[in-house]
C-alpha cells in the first residue's frame, strides 16, 4: 500500500521499515472516565512531515502524549488500539527509553526549565539520552547554528527569555537527544507570525538535510499545511480526514468545517448576511 509511494531505498529496506510511526484505532480516556479519543489512526513514514490538525479539544495533544507514552503521567489511559514506533509497541516502552530510541517530544506550552539557563536546558536534553561529554559540546554548537538567537541568550535563565526563544530552547533541547522522530505540540502557540515562520523553516531544513521525521500538531493549519507532506484531521477525538498537504490546502471547505479558519468563517458570515439584506 504505502510502500510504493515512499520511493526506492538504496539499501533494500523492507516495505514495513518505511513506516516509522503508526497509530491504529487509538482510543483513550482520562481518569478512566473522560473519553478523549475514540478511533484515531495515522502514520508517519521515514523522512516525512505529518501535520495533525484540528480545533481546540479535538484530541491532538492526547494523541501526541499517547505516542510518547506520557499519557499515564497525566492520568490518561489508552483503552484501545495500538501505537508502534520503529517496530516496537510504544505502550511497553518507557518514555525515557523512547527518547533513547529516537522518539522525542516537544510539549505544548514549551515547558522549558524556567530556573535553568538556556544552555542548561539544552544540556538536560543531552542527559536525557545519556550523551557523552564530547558529544554534548558538538551538539550544542549545532543547536546554536540552527538557532543563532539562543547563543546570545545561553547564560540567561530560560524563564526570562521571550516566548519565541523558549520555543527554540524547547526544540533545541529535544534535538540534543538526536531524534529520528520529533513530535511537536503546537509550536506556534502564542508566537508572532514571523517567529512561527522561522521555526517551521528551521524544522523543514532539518527534515530535508538530515531526514528528520516530524509529527506536528497545530491549530494554525495554514502554516502547518505549507510545510507538511501529509496531514491528518481530528474532530471530537476521531480521525475524519487524511491526505497530502497539498490536496488539503486546496480544499477551503475542509478548513472552514474542521479547522475554524477565521478568514473563512468571516467570509461565510458576511456572505450570509449579505444574502439576508438582499
Amino acid at each position, binding site marked *: 500500500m504505502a510502500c510504493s509511494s515512499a520511493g526506492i531505498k538504496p539499501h533494500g529496506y523492507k516495505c514495513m521499515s518505511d513506516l516509522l510511526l503508526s497509530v491504529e484505532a487509538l482510543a483513550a480516556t482520562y481518569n478512566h472516565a473522560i473519553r478523549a479519543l475514540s478511533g484515531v489512526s495515522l502514520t508517519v513514514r521515514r523522512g516525512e512531515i505529518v501535520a495533525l490538525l484540528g480545533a481546540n479539544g479535538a484530541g491532538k495533544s492526547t494523541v501526541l502524549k499517547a505516542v510518547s507514552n506520557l499519557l499515564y503521567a497525566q492520568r490518561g489511559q489508552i483503552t484501545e488500539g495500538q501505537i508502534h514506533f520503529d517496530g516496537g509497541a510504544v505502550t511497553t516502552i518507557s518514555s525515557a527509553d523512547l527518547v533513547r530510541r529516537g522518539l522525542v517530544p516537544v510539549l505544548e506550552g514549551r515547558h522549558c*526549565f524556567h*530556573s*535553568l539557563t538556556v544552555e542548561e536546558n539544552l544540556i538536560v536534553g543531552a542527559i536525557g539520552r545519556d550523551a557523552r561529554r564530547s558529544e554534548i559540546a558538538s551538539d550544542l554548537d549545532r543547536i546554536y547554528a540552527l538557532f543563532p538567537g539562543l547563543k546570545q541568550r545561553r547564560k540567561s535563565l530560560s524563564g526570562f527569555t521571550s516566548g519565541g526563544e523558549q520555543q527554540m530552547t524547547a526544540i533545541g533541547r529535544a534535538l540534543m*537527544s538526536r531524534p529520528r522522530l520529533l513530535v511537536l505540540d503546537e509550536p506556534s502557540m502564542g508566537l508572532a507570525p514571523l517567529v512561527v515562520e522561522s521555526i517551521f523553516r528551521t524544522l523543514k531544513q532539518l527534515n530535508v538535510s538530515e531526514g528528520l521525521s516530524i509529527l506536528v500538531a497545530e491549530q494554525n493549519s495554514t502554516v502547518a499545511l505549507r510545510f507538511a507532506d501529509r496531514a491528518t484531521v481530528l474532530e471530537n477525538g476521531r480521525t475524519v480526514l487524511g491526505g497530502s498537504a497539498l490536496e488539503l490546502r486546496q480544499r477551503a471547505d475542509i478548513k472552514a468545517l474542521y479547522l475554524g479558519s477565521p478568514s473563512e468563517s468571516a467570509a461565510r458570515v458576511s456572505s450570509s448576511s449579505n444574502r439576508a439584506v438582499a
Partner: protein
Amino acid sequence: MFDYQFFIEVLVGGLLSGVMYSLVAIGFVLIYKTSGVLNFAQGAMILFAALTFVSLLERGVPFPLALLATLAVMVVLGIAVERFVLRPLVNQPPITLFMATLGLSYVIEGAAQLLWGAQVHGLDLGISDTPFDVAGVLISQFDLFAAAVAGALVALFALFFRYTRTGLAFRAVADDQFAALAVGLRLPRVWAAVWTAAGIVAVVAGLLWGARLGVQFSLSLIVLKALPVLVLGGFDSIAGAIVGGLLIGAIEKLAEVYVGPFFGGGIEAWAAYVVALGFLLVRPSGLFGQKLVERV
C-alpha cells in the same frame, strides 16, 4: 541600660543553634523540591541514623567504620523507600504521599527500636561543649563545630547541584517534572539520588543532634522544629532552609530572654510557631519560596 554584649551573646547562640534546625530542614527541602513529597519520615530517618551509629560504636566498631556503615545503611534505606513506598504511588495526590511518609515514619521508628532497643544512648563526638571567649562573647565550641559541618555540607551540595550531571537533572526535575519526564530523564533514578542525599543529611543531623540531646526516641520529634523553619524559608528552597533555620534559632533565644519574662518564661518551645503562624498570613510561600520565574 541595654546590654549589647549580652544581646550579641544570645543572638550568636541562637544563630548557631539555628544551624541545627537548618540541617533538619534541608532534608525536607531536597525531597520536597524534586518530588513534591513532604517527607514526614525525615525525623525518623534522623533517629534511625543516630541510633545505628551509636549502637555500632557501643559494639566496639571504630568511629570511621561506624560512620561509613551508617551512611551505607541510610543510602540503602533511602533507595528502598523510593522503590517500595513512593514509586508505586507516583501520580497520587500530595495528601496520599504525605500520609505514606507519616506511616513510614512509624515503621522506621519501630524498626529502629526493634533493632537497637529503646534505651537512651549518650553520644560523644569528642568535641567539648565548653564555651570560649571571642571578644567578650561566649561561644560554644560544639555549636561552632556543628555550624562548620553544616556549612561544609551545604557547600558540598551546592557544588554538586551546580557542576554535576545528576545535579543538573535534579534541578530540572525540581523545576518541571513533566518536562523532565518528556526529555527522557529517568525520574526514579533522580528520586533515588535525592533520597540518598536526604539519608546523608539525616546522618549528619542525627549525629549532631544526638550528641547534643542524647540518642533517644524523641529525636524523631525534631521534625516538628523544622516545620516553622520551612514556613519561614519556603518549602522548596535550600537557601530558605538555611536562612529560616538561623532566623528561627535567633528568634527562639531572643524571645526567651527578652519576651519570656512577660509570660513567666518557657516560651522558647513555642515562640517559633507563633512567628511561623504570623508569617503564613503575610507571606504564605516563605521568604525564598518559589516565586515562579516568569516574564510578564
